[in-house]
């Protein structure tokens, strides 16, 4: 474990990943201090004005908007849109900060639950073998027969709009990789003598799986999971972009990009006039995903026994 941590910190690419990740964790923790929410639901991006066109960075909150917040007895602690506003006056900076929490929430919850499902099904399948294995693996094949994005889109459409629906869809079609991975490693471990010994001693099946097999096989699955956090966030953002994910005005980077895509070309003669509406949420998604991928890529190289000693 120490060896792995040391390599992670001494390798240039993974160090960049770790620094980026720490940056995002700090933003997520201090979100209420950086941009205090203006409504009861902190994930609702406050509006700075009623303008239809995006407003450039540095524009101020309009007077009628201040009046409304005053009427609602909300204290406006900031009135400058540092990164500009999106269509409809939504403050981009606020969305970026609170969107970090959304991204962590999507990534960690979906990966954790789908990993749990995968581990349970995969270990049952490998440990008992026979027809149980056959049935569970064919079910896995069936779930794998859908392009991930298409499956997630269809399920979200049927379930209805909203972040929780997106997460349900991502989990429903995200567990198969883990199930196969853990099945493979348990199949090779379960013939080891210490497992045989436990069986001969009459230890219960559940206990053998939890106490003997999983601790020895779970590590590659967790590496895989950390690498998948990025792709889950991308898929959730893609669903928002397609218009079936988070609702308009929700602090979610994908929704912000989607909302801004009509403005990317700019007005005639002013190409890129509204660059900030796409650029800021876009760069946040890319850096967030990149941080996980950089760490994951190095982890995989470190753990690959064939490459040991070459990094």
């Amino acid at each position, binding site marked *: 474990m120490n060896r792995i941590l040391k390599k992670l910190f001494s390798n240039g690419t993974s160090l960049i990943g770790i620094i980026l990740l720490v940056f995002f964790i700090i933003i997520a923790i201090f979100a209420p201090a950086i941009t205090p929410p203006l409504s009861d639901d902190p994930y609702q991006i406050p509006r700075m004005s009623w303008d239809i066109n995006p407003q450039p960075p540095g524009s101020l909150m309009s007077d009628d908007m201040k009046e409304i917040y005053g009427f609602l007895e909300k204290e406006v602690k900031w009135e400058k849109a540092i990164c500009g506003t999106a269509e409809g006056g939504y403050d981009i900076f606020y969305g970026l900060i609170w969107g970090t929490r959304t991204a962590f929430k999507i990534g960690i919850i979906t990966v954790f639950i789908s990993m749990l499902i995968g581990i349970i099904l995969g270990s049952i399948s490998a440990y008992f073998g026979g027809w149980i294995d056959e049935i569970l693996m064919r079910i896995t094949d*069936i779930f794998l*027969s859908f*392009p991930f994005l*298409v*499956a997630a889109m269809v399920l979200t459409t*049927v379930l209805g709009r909203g972040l929780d629906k997106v997460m349900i869809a991502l989990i429903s079609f995200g567990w198969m990789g883990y199930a196969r991975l853990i099945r493979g490693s348990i199949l090779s471990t379960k013939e080891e003598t210490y497992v045989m010994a436990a069986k001969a001693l009459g230890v219960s099946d559940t206990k053998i799986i939890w106490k003997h097999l999983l601790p020895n096989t779970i590590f590659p699955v967790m590496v895989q999971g950390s690498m998948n956090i990025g792709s889950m966030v991308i898929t959730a953002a893609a669903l928002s972009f397609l218009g079936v994910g988070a609702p308009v005005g929700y602090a979610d980077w994908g929704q912000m*990009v989607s909302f801004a895509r009509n403005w990317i*070309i*700019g007005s005639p003669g002013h190409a890129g006039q509204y660059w900030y509406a796409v650029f800021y949420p876009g760069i946040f998604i890319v850096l967030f995903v990149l941080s996980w991928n950089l760490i994951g890529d190095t982890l995989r190289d470190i753990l690959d026994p064939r490459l040991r000693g070459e990094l």
Partner: protein
Amino acid sequence: MLSYIIRRMLLLPIILIGVTFLIFCVFSLLSPMERLATYVRDPNTLKSPQSAERLIAKYHLDEPFPLGYINWLGRMVRLDLGWSQTANQSVADAIKQRFPATLELVLYSIIPVILIGIWLGVISAVHHNDMLDQTIRVTAIIGWSLPTFIFGLFVLFIFYGILGWFPPGRLSAWAQDIVYTGNFTSYTHLITVDALLNGNIPIFLDALRHLIAPIITLSYISWAFLLRITRSSMLDTLRKDYIRTARAKGVDEHTVIHLHAKRNALIPVTTIAGMMIIGMLGGVMITETVFTFPGLGFWAAQSAQQLDYGTVISFALLFSTIMVVGNLVVDLSYALIDPRVRLG
């Protein structure tokens, strides 16, 4: 070998039935009224409760689960996929009309995936760990971290917004007039191919101009991924004993890499390449939406936004079927390519 092929063939119908069953389960999450809406052409017929009830009975939407599934499957097999409100035509017709555009896009996207992915992967492995390898590798990771829709918007902004080279859509207005109304025979409905068959070079160039930006967007993730696979497979092969023997014998480096190592290293890569090409199906939705390219993916995304359930469900059915059959073809061809599997 033969038993493997037979086993895979026997599993195909089981998987397909499982896939349709899963889709039906998702479909069943909708209320009978919502499900009925997928078959009805004129929404006004749903307004009176009597006619709605009559239609629910007609389409067997109130039946218990197993019967409902069999009825639904029967309709799907007869290609009675319902009515698409988004396309304002029957779902089957809409698929037939939009399929060639998507096919054309995917077919062209295979070229950069194979060429760039494999070529850069080999270079990266040969120059393992030096500057060039690190640069290629980091570029690939960045490429992999870029969501398709952000990359697509970026491409659109540069090549259309600033440079004005590659406009969105499938054809310019003048070319549409010729292709859809004028003296132009559609043989394959792939516009670039048809244009060449008609000997109409301006149309060919116009279609190509509209294809380039979507091709770049659709293919870059696949080649970034393929590059990583090729690199590690090549690294693995270069460490094999027979390569050391070849080098010790004094075979020149070019021959070692291109004749001895590459051939073996590319065997697993072909499988992944096949899977990547199938995997591009998912990216089609995003790419076509970014470039308003009138294919299946753009239509599916529109239907999802407008809660046109029938279309979305048919789309899932179509893409999963393509994926199941495609995976089978890839697996079988892998068995044929690799002599160890073929003869084993």
